[in-house]
């Protein structure tokens, strides 16, 4: 990568790491959600850098547009009196085991990536949305249909879970 790309990469990496750390360390859930949104924007920037603008826009539309709104609804429906926020402060020692849990697999996989994966394409080529659409309707049509079934089942399950309690009253 050249200097400009490296600068953009560093900025997006900063967004990802900063947003992620904010997402897991802030005690208020709204701030955690803001951290998640920041990290999602960083990942969208990484997709742009990888010359995959369609996936980047889908990331912005689906994650930043839909999933975070869903999580915001979850936070809104479980307000602080219900214990949605972690009120009591945690001791510093509570961080040790989770940090080890996170670092160990990342280090292992990082060594694997460094030693055994080789890059064969110097510059990523741009795919048009037409190619992606032809892939979805051609060789990968089954995955496309399956994901719509999964989404339908998830929505139906969510609705049924929401109704069940009311019937039993």
């Amino acid at each position: 990568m050249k200097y400009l790309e490296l600068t953009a990469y560093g900025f997006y990496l900063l967004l990802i790491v900063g947003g992620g750390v904010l997402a897991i360390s802030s005690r208020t859930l709204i701030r955690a959600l803001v951290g998640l949104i920041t990290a999602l924007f960083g990942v969208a920037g990484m997709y742009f850098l990888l010359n995959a603008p369609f996936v980047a826009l889908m990331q912005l539309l689906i994650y930043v547009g839909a999933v975070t709104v869903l999580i915001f609804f979850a936070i809104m429906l479980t307000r602080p009196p219900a214990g949605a926020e972690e009120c009591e402060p945690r001791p510093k020692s509570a961080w040790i085991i989770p940090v080890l849990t996170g670092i160990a697999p990342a280090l292992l996989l990082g060594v694997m990536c460094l030693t055994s994966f080789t890059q064969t394409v110097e510059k990523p080529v741009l795919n048009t949305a037409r190619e992606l659409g032809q892939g979805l309707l051609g060789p990968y049509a089954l995955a496309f249909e399956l994901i719509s079934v999964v989404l339908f089942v998830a929505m139906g399950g969510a609705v049924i879970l929401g109704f069940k309690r009311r019937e039993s009253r």
Partner: protein
Amino acid sequence: MNDLFLFQVASLALLAIGLVGLTLRRSFIAILISVELLLNGAGLSIVAASKLTGADDVLGQLSALLIMGLAAAEATLVLAIILVVLRRFGHVDSTKTTLLRG
């Protein structure tokens, strides 16, 4: 240190942060946020691997879209489960939710 490794570092950072959040946080919503971070790392890793090696570009990008769909479905279901847990227990703390049948 090639470009592929740089992008994998970003996705590994997401993996590490997501795992830390998954084991550290106690509220179900915070756990959901950590899972979203993990899934994003997976998507970024797949797209980077397919774009920078000889693998099929279209397959990698469609896999990332598939992961996004799965994440949306998962977030919907978890929202419904959180609402059920809230109605039944009055809180969404994973350490206090210990009853399976009630």
